[in-house]
């Protein structure tokens, strides 16, 4: 892996028939960075993310994630990344403990490590009293915090978060971001999508996809300066209004 670069994408492209979902995107993400991956619905974020996670083969271009090639080493990618989305994160009909050991097992931790990680994680989240509760019975804010902790239980090089805070109450949303900061301070790279523009401002750098391309990529501060506006919301509106595609 090139020193300090967790993602290197060059001209990464995905076509479905005549439709180009992701159109020659190039970017790099540094170790420990919080990288915001924004775009309107249908801009191509999910497709790009699936390629980076080793779940979908690119049509052309190159990319490496955590030092592994997305074409040849996609199995190694899956072992070295964490993933969490708003839509799917935990098994509702398993308990808190069962979810932790299930995922930790999948990520290849042995029994001793699982035991150790479970107690550490429950203590951090102050969830000891709920270890035997079904995940279904937890408030959404707790679920999402648990899901995030589980997604990084194997200390991955990078964690992909797909709209992790949708629908979460404003205090829990901020607690969630504190966890993101803490993980990033530990050297875990964060790759996050969100529709909350205030959250975009918490990122080290932000890319904005429009119609399959990356139309802007910089720190929130520089983006706002370059667009001559005072919030990321306005940056986003200026760019996304140019989109030709019908939203997904």
């Amino acid at each position, binding site marked *: 892996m090139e020193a300090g670069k967790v993602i290197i994408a060059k001209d990464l492209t995905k076509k479905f028939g005549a439709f180009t979902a992701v159109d020659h995107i190039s970017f790099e993400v540094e170790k420990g960075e919080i990288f915001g991956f924004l775009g309107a619905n249908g801009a191509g974020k999910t497709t790009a993310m699936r390629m980076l996670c080793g779940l979908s083969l690119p049509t052309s271009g190159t990319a490496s994630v955590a030092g592994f090639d997305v074409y040849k080493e996609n199995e190694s990618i899956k072992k070295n990344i964490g993933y969490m989305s708003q839509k799917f994160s935990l098994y509702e009909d398993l308990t808190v403990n069962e979810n932790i050991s299930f995922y930790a097992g999948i990520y290849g931790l042995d029994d001793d490590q699982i035991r150790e990680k479970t107690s550490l994680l429950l203590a951090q989240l102050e969830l000891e009293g709920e270890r035997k509760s079904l995940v279904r019975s937890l408030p959404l804010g707790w679920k999402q915090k648990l899901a995030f902790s589980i997604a990084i239980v194997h200390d991955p090089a990078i964690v992909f978060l797909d709209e992790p805070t949708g629908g979460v109450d404003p205090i829990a949303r901020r607690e969630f971001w504190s966890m993101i900061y803490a993980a990033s301070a530990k050297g875990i790279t964060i790759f996050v999508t969100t529709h909350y523009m205030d959250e975009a401002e918490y990122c080290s750098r932000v890319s904005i996809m429009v119609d399959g391309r990356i139309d802007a990529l910089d720190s929130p501060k520089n983006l706002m300066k370059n667009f001559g506006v005072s919030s*990321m919301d306005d940056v986003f509106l200026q760019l*996304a209004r140019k989109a030709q595609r019908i*939203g997904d």
Partner: protein
Amino acid sequence: MKTIVVENIIKKYRAGKVEVEALGGVSFAVDQGEIFGLIGPDGAGKTSLFRILTTLLLADSGFASVDGFDVVKDYKKIRNRVGYMPGKFSLYPDLTVQENLEFFAAIFHTTIKENYELVKEIYSQIEPFKDRRAGQLSGGMKQKLALSCALIHKPTVLFLDEPTTGVDAVSRKEFWEMLHRLKMQGITILVSTAYMDEATLCDRVGLIQKGMLLSVNTPKDIIEEFQHSLWAIKANEMYPLMEAIKSDPAVMSCYPFGQYHHVTFNHNENNKEELERIVENGNYTNVEIIPITANVEDCFMALMKE
């Protein structure tokens, strides 16, 4: 006459041995032609309330009426006059766009042609795909079709349960512009959302959390009710700055808001000096401190803490 009346509605669910109170005695009323927003996170009880008002769920106790009709006794009359867009996509995935709309028109004894004017603005955007199956549509198009189907029988009251969840900032703006045009036609709208910034687009809002209304008011008055002076602070070192502010005994709350942290104190005097004192005790660069007016999210968090 109030178009929607909700009086002390209680709804409990039983999950195994545990009883969960989804709605713990909720009361409010919505005027004719008003856009009323129920603002609150997942699990606040918004969907239960929508299902009770659209006569799909019975409350344990309390009274509710829509357009003057009792949700229990007159449920058939209510069903004829309300449009409901559930949070979960609930159209027929194996029917085409046009077939879905025709179906919903037909069960209300009307036709697309008869009420086309009402849905035109929304439906025309998906009409190029009218022969595509609804299950094959993208999220944004599904949302437009669902709204068309909820409107095709010319309802007097529209219930929209989290129509903008997972929708990007641009599409959300467009969706709200559309709601304001529907309001102009005299339709009363009850809409729920987890996005606090959408509160300002409603005539009045109810802030809801854990089955209880925290406040019911115009967005302007909710903001005016905010008790504390509020300060925004930023520096190059945001995370250590937040830790330092939070651990100061004079501070009541400190929450990140984009590029700034919003801070309130236990006392409203000399807050600026207090912040400057905290800053002087650390190594911060490019510090900026400004007094600000609260937004709805500040108010919501303050009410949650009470």
